[in-house]
């Protein structure tokens, strides 16, 4: 069956070509399912590149690529979702406050597109929203803790109500606690409880469908090590 489909596709291409004008792109004539498979493949590859980036160079390259994908596949929630995710992560890496905010401004645009494309409630969006709030807070903690702290809590709670089994909720909570001074109820010890909860949930997650976000496990494990190091 498969080979048959492929033959038909190939046939189509073959017959279609002579009448093509130069401007038409190859992508548009591929059948919908192949285009989608290609899109999914590209997206997964870029996300995995992003997650496994070993230096800032690789990280930015993968993020740039994710933005390209989102700009091209505007109607794909997942493309917008990952572009938002990668920019948010970059904002943490960036040192200059002005640029941090610029990354997050862009990330917000992608997130709202993801929201409007998906149409129904989805816990992962609220997770990302919470992460964005946390990233905003991180730019100027003293000035922003109030507004963005509340926004963070609001969105983690919302995500929790939709799917309490989402490990990223606890990973983010742990992160937030880790960077909250101990005197305000944060600290490594409190953070570790959350990271460990996330750890169990991450283990049960499948990592092959890009439409079901699975990012965070590597970072979560790193944070567990960090917490343990600090507690000692």
């Amino acid at each position, binding site marked *: 069956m498969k080979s048959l489909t492929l033959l038909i596709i190939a046939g189509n291409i073959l017959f279609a070509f002579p009448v093509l004008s130069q401007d038409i792109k190859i992508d548009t004539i591929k059948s919908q399912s192949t285009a989608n498979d290609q899109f999914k493949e590209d997206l997964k590859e870029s996300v995995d590149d992003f997650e496994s980036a070993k230096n800032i160079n690789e990280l*930015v390259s993968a993020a740039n690529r994710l933005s390209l994908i989102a700009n091209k596949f505007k109607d794909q929630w997942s493309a917008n979702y990952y572009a938002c995710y990668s920019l948010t992560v970059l904002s943490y890496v*960036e040192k200059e406050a002005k640029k941090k905010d610029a990354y997050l401004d862009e990330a917000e645009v992608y997130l709202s597109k993801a929201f409007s494309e998906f149409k129904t409630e989805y816990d992962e969006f609220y997770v990302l929203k919470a992460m964005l709030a946390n990233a905003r807070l991180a730019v100027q903690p003293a000035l922003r803790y109030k507004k963005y702290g509340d926004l963070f809590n609001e969105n983690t709670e919302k995500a929790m109500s939709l799917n309490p089994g989402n490990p990223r909720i606890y990973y983010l909570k742990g992160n937030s606690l880790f960077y909250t001074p101990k005197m305000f109820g944060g600290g490594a010890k409190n953070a570790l409880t959350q990271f460990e909860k996330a750890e169990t949930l991450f283990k049960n997650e499948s990592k092959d469908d890009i439409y079901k976000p699975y990012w965070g496990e590597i970072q979560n494990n790193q944070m567990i090590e960090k917490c343990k190091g600090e507690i000692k």
Partner: protein
Amino acid sequence: MGKIKNTFKIVALIFSLITQFSGIAGAQTRISGQMKDTKNQPLPFASISIENTIDGTTTDSLGRFSFKTHEQGKHVLVGSYIGYETKKDTIYIPKNNLVHNMTIKEKPLAIREVVVTAGAFEANDDPKVAILKPLDIYTNAGSGGDIAGAIRTLPGTQAQTDQTGLFVRGGDASESSFIIDGMVVQNPFSSNVPGVSQRSRFTPFQFKGISFSSGGYSVRYGQALSSVLELNTMDLAEKTNLNFSAGVTGIALSGTERWKKSSVEITGHYDNLSPFLNLAKSNVHFFQVPVGGGFSVKYVLAATNKDLLKLFFKYDVSSSGTDVPNPYSADKVNYPNAGDSIIGFGLKNSNLYFNSSYRHTFDNLILRTSVSASNNKDNINWGPIPGSNFDWRIQWRGETLYNINDQVNILVGSELQRFQFNQTFSTFNSGFNELLTAGYAELDWKPFHWLAFKPGLRFEHSNLLNKSNYGPRLAMAIGTGNNSQISLASGLFFEDPDKKYLYSGYRPNFQNAIHYIANYQWIKNNRTFRVEAYYKSYNQLVYENLSNSVRYDANPYRFIPLNEIIDNSGNGYAKGMEIFWRDNATIPNLDYWISYSYIDTKRLYQNFRSSVTPSFVANNNLNLLVKYFIEPLQLNVGASYVYASGRPFYDHDFIVKTAPDYNDLSVNLSYLTTIGKFFGVAYMGIDNVLNRKNIYGYQFSPDGTSHNIVPALYRTIYIGFTISLSQFTKEEL
């Protein structure tokens, strides 16, 4: 499987055939080049791609890029980099390689709109205008958690601790108005005890925003020649919580309940200064240690996101007995039996305060209306002589803010203020009644993001004086860069004559002042620099045309003689320059600021014999403030140093003398911790660590006797703690 592989091969073969024959999906073209900014600096990590495709790459450390594409012919090459404007170049992709360099421009991030800042210092959560945070007030060493104390660290103010109130740019305390949610507070400070500066009645926690204007303020306010301190209370409480605090001056308990659309906050306090006075040696003797207590209730309702109703009620009582220099003993004419030169000043005060405000937002219209009322009673004993002060006030304000478009806003409003003051001393009694009617309009026009105008006009009528006035005001701001601006303000400001003249039955005209202010402000990455220059002319000040043979009496409680020529023939000026620098970026966890004010001012008013610098003015005032958070210890440490050059004072012949310079070094510490569900802060503050014996001057009586004016206490130590249950807020810090 094998079949599929074969099929692929076939497809690939077909493709390559097509490629060769048609030439359209030809071999990939390599596009390369370099990306630079307008300063010709290479941009690493920039993104470059062909529009609507995912063909693209990221530039290397030298801004170079190189990628392959199947695209041919006319296309758009997109270059982007965070913080830069996206650049789109039309290119023709040839079959061969293409070299295309790109230059992209830095984006003016979130265009900063200019804001009128002349004369204004803001403490709130808006980073565009805020120079202070509300929290600063509580954490400044030396301010003792007092709002006025914290404001005294800002430029334009006098580091005054022997008298109550704010002394701004050559003005006396009566020239400053204290506003809460748009309404005048008649008794913002605890009742006066001669020679002891009093704290404000309100705690800084209650406010989300504080705006201090040392001149050129909005038409919303009148009856202040010098300054307006505007405080805005919190909206809906954040969370339900419970707080308890105790210190050497008393204990306080507060509870907040937050529902979805409303919140209630109830507070209660008991004050007793005995432990505090035991820790420090005071310069005044209290025959009855100050004690007091009170409670407050606040209700906020946000029925919809377009409505906001706030109700606030507060009631406090206090009493104290202080030995003070008898202000009447030297005045044998008016007070033949005034008694000893030191006299017991007994005070019992009760104060009731109510404020309500309601705001409704329509599409492009905001309606605000407020009503406030207060009632204040002091029962006084000047030694054996009984006296009292009794005053009340009711105020109403209604205003509309009309948002015509992004550039133009119009504010139109009116207010009614009715207040009465009565005082008795022995068998004398006097009083007056005022009804002030005011209307105002102000335009806020921003033709460009770098230019703002704020012209306005205030009309006011006084029933007591039977006079009216018109006060035009104008403020503007011009952007001079993304982080800097120049702001200018000018205006005409009116105020009723001082109460002491109204008590004695005099009804002169309004006094007035004209302000001219120019300000330059630069804010970038948590660093602020401000420099401000001003000129202020005082006109129609109330002046007592006394005969030259009458000697000068510096006593602020002196009796105003009846049937004299007391009119508006006084005048004066104030000019000066102020610098402010704050930096909390250079060293992590370190925040410091420097504020310096120079003033040159002279005035002929009240019972002055010639135009001189008033005794409440030091020409040079310097404040240094440092705060440092020692993270591993969870300890905040702070210090403040205040310097004021010697103030002038006048003897009974009105000959000027100068007091020594004033110096003060204060430190504070606070330790923050969380124990289970409790969040706690323990703090300690030491004012005047070096125990310097500051002398503000000497007060002369007409007979030539004098006493020195000194602070009520030299070195003071304050210790206390606060704990919050469960969902604390950082506000409790």
